[in-house]
């Protein structure tokens, strides 16, 4: 597959939130303010990229030679959790400024199923290393894009007179549905 097509497809057309419905927790939980959404988005890009490359290496360098492919799920979960802990610790120790920006979002990412999805997807789609790198950047970039767009809309909604029955999460779900419909139309691009 052409790398540009893969990037566009992973980021916009097969968007992890709007077409796969993964990572819905941060999508709903951390989208009340644009600044929060941006911080979370950056943290997700970093963790998904790092965790995907580590999982890829673990699968092809350890599990495949030992014929332990059936262990990919359990090993990837543990690897992602360890990677998040390690990242949190390094940022805490060496970069207080970065910790202020991303620190509170890192523990949330451990429970983000999008991270596991990307790691597993790279294996099931049989991507090579370059395709894995492109996919591991494009998917979280799409996640961040949707999160920031959604947060911007929710921020603007706060000043509006929403009917009581729709206030809060109900109107947020309606917006998410409209966004999903809008992004479906991009499927003609590829």
């Amino acid at each position, binding site marked *: 597959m052409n790398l540009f097509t893969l990037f566009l497809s992973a980021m916009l057309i097969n968007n992890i939130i709007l077409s796969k419905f993964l990572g819905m927790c941060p999508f709903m939980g951390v989208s*009340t303010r644009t600044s929060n959404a941006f911080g979370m988005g950056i943290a997700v890009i970093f963790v998904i990229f790092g965790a995907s490359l580590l999982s890829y290496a673990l699968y092809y360098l350890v599990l495949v030679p030992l014929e*332990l492919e059936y262990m990919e799920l359990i090993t990837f979960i543990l690897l992602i959790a*360890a990677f998040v802990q390690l990242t949190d610790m390094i940022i805490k120790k060496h970069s207080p400024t970065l910790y202020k920006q991303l620190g509170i979002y890192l523990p949330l990412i451990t429970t983000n199923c999008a991270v596991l999805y990307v790691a597993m997807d790279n294996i099931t789609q049989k991507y090579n290393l370059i395709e894995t790198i492109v996919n591991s950047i494009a998917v979280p970039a799409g996640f961040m894009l949707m999160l920031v767009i959604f947060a911007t809309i929710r921020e603007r909604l706060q000043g509006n007179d929403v009917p009581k029955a729709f206030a809060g999460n109900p109107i947020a779900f309606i917006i998410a549905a409209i966004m999903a419909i809008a992004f479906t139309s991009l499927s003609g691009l590829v």
Partner: protein
Amino acid sequence: MNALLGAAIAFALVGLNAWLYTANKKTPVPEGCEELKPDCSACGIRDCALRSALTERKEENNGDN
């Protein structure tokens, strides 16, 4: 033999996680970051480590009112 290797890999990863978790807990939080709290009230994951902080903050706010 392969099953044993698989179990060893799983145990190694669990051990790595446990070690990193305790090391992370022991690492001091940078100055000025002690009171960082997430704004994630809409999230439904009840066993998240951040949820207790959020619940405490809500209780504090209720107590003040």
